[in-house]
């Protein structure tokens, strides 16, 4: 192991140590070194001569750093062609991370490749004595990520949802969240701390989410309704990564998703009119989430 000697705002290139094909479109690259990233933080990943994009850290165990990505855009399609031994630049880690208390009962909701950072969270939280309900959703069975890894962790109840019903529940992962939230509501203020209440189930302390924004929006609304705290990971166009350029700000508060995010608490998200409605491109132009591409 070589600790990455990194000035966090200047990319340094590292050779890819291992590549794992997760699904048809999703790969995990392992870099030999730790950036000291915490679950939920992101790094700027640079492909010399192509582009640099933000990616969530899928794992940083103090020895290696893993990045899991979906080959969907110009940069990631090129990036997916890299082989073991090829170079990629890393800069970071940047932004906020998920926060928890030891022993909490937490629901993790992962949509698509959001499962990668959620696995990082799961691994760290169970290490702190947390018990987890992990809900992984995807279009179909072959797109579900990190099932084996999640199953191998202790204190994890795994729930699956696919749009076509090819694995687990047929429908959306947020439907499962609603069932969990409604079947075991949090004790009301007067019940809290009282020993008279019979504990038939383990109330949910927090919900963490990572995935498409419309999924996050549903989680936000649901957690608002059931009064359960939530922390959700937002995605916006990033340039500097450390709060200078202002490209990743969200209306109307103007907060920066690279500094005050990407993991944002639900009480803040509920104040953001932009959340679930639109995002801005590299020019600052708005694009609605429902607009046709």
């Amino acid at each position, binding site marked *: 192991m070589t600790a990455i000697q990194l*000035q966090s*705002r*200047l*990319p*340094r*290139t590292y*050779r890819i140590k291992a590549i794992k094909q997760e699904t048809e479109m999703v790969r995990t690259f392992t870099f030999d070194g730790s950036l000291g990233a915490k679950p939920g933080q992101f790094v*700027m990943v*640079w492909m*010399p*001569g*192509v*582009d*640099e*994009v933000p990616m969530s850290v899928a794992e940083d165990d103090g020895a290696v750093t893993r990045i899991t990505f979906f080959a969907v855009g110009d940069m990631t399609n090129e990036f997916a062609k890299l082989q073991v031994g090829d*170079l990629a*630049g890393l*800069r970071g880690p940047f932004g906020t991370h998920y926060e928890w208390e030891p022993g909490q009962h937490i629901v993790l909701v992962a949509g698509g490749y959001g499962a990668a950072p959620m696995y990082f969270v799961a691994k760290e939280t169970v290490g702190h004595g947390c018990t987890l309900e992990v809900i992984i959703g995807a279009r179909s069975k072959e797109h579900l990520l990190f099932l084996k890894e999640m199953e191998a962790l202790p204190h994890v109840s795994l729930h699956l949802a696919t749009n076509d019903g090819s694995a687990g529940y047929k429908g959306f992962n947020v439907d499962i969240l609603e069932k969990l939230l409604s079947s075991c509501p949090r004790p009301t203020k007067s019940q809290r701390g009282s020993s008279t209440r019979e504990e038939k189930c383990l109330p949910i302390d927090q919900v963490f989410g990572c995935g498409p924004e419309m999924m996050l929006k549903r989680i936000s609304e649901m957690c608002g309704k059931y009064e359960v705290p939530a922390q959700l990971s937002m995605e916006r166009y990033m*340039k*500097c*990564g*450390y*709060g*200078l*350029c*202002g*490209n990743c*700000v*969200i*209306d*109307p*508060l*103007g*907060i*920066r998703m690279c500094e005050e995010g990407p993991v944002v608490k639900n009480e803040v998200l509920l104040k953001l009119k932009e959340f679930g409605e639109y995002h*801005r*491109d*590299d*020019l*600052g*132009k*708005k694009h609605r989430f429902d607009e046709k591409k």
Partner: protein
Amino acid sequence: MNLSQTILGVQFENPTVLASGIMGVTAGSWRLVASHGAGGITTKSLWLKEHKGHPNPTIISTEHWTLNAVGVPDAGPEKAREEISDFLQDKPVPLIANIIAESVENFAKTAESILPLHPDFIEVNISCPNVEDEFGKPFACSAPDAAAVTKAVKKVSKGTPVFIKLSPNVDSIAKIAEACAKAGADGFTVINTVGPGMAIDLRSRMPILANKVGGLSGPGIKPIAVKCIADVYAATGGRLPIIGTGGVYTGEDAIELMLAGASLIGIGTALGDRGLDVFKHVCDEIQMWCTNEGVDNVADLIGGMHKVLAGVKSEKLIVKNDRKNSPKRRS
């Protein structure tokens, strides 16, 4: 101790201003910066039409320097109108609209498109070092070109003060400033980024910035800013206000630029290191220094070096320092 000033009829509660290109995309972010203590806001450079920037990496830095080649992206006038109108609804602090164009004619047209929104000042970016591949040498590198842009914008500005943003990357910034002053400039912003510079990744042997080169900013450029401000102040006899920008991190940095001739102080790169509260910190530090030194009005600092060099004994500075036995007494 009074930090406020009225400059060309515009009241600024303190001398700090958000520099162009930093946190400048939306009305929400301008408000956020104002709520953290900035005395004024400068927009990102606005174009007449949508303009693409460079691919990433666009901004990289170490503790010593920052290089940027964002490439002046902008969504065009419709977005500018939306964001500026939104901000001006409650306008917590004065707004400086920064404009850019590829031709003299379009500088005037861009100014005309923005002026109906009533920004407090127009800042004319003739000095961006990051679009040379696209447009050639900046207008700020030639006195006749800089004067031509100034004249064209002044012709349409209808009383809105026009600040010309100058480049340090020239033989004589004084000559450029003189030419712009003759062409009617109301003030200057000094300086834009330095260089350009380059950084190479050792293993890939590739330049890190997608644009290969980028403008240099950060604490190390402050002496260049101080010298350029002093030159422009001297060349214009201190008659035109200067927004001093370059390497300001602390209140003492800001005071140094004011002594060189700046009235307002642009802060940009420091925001990445001291956070959004950099504006508040710089103001507190100016206040503390001035209180200790017996300076009652921040405006008394402007051009202080020139006055001392000219043998003008500022009673305020010297007499009070004597009384307090200041170790920093000037002879």
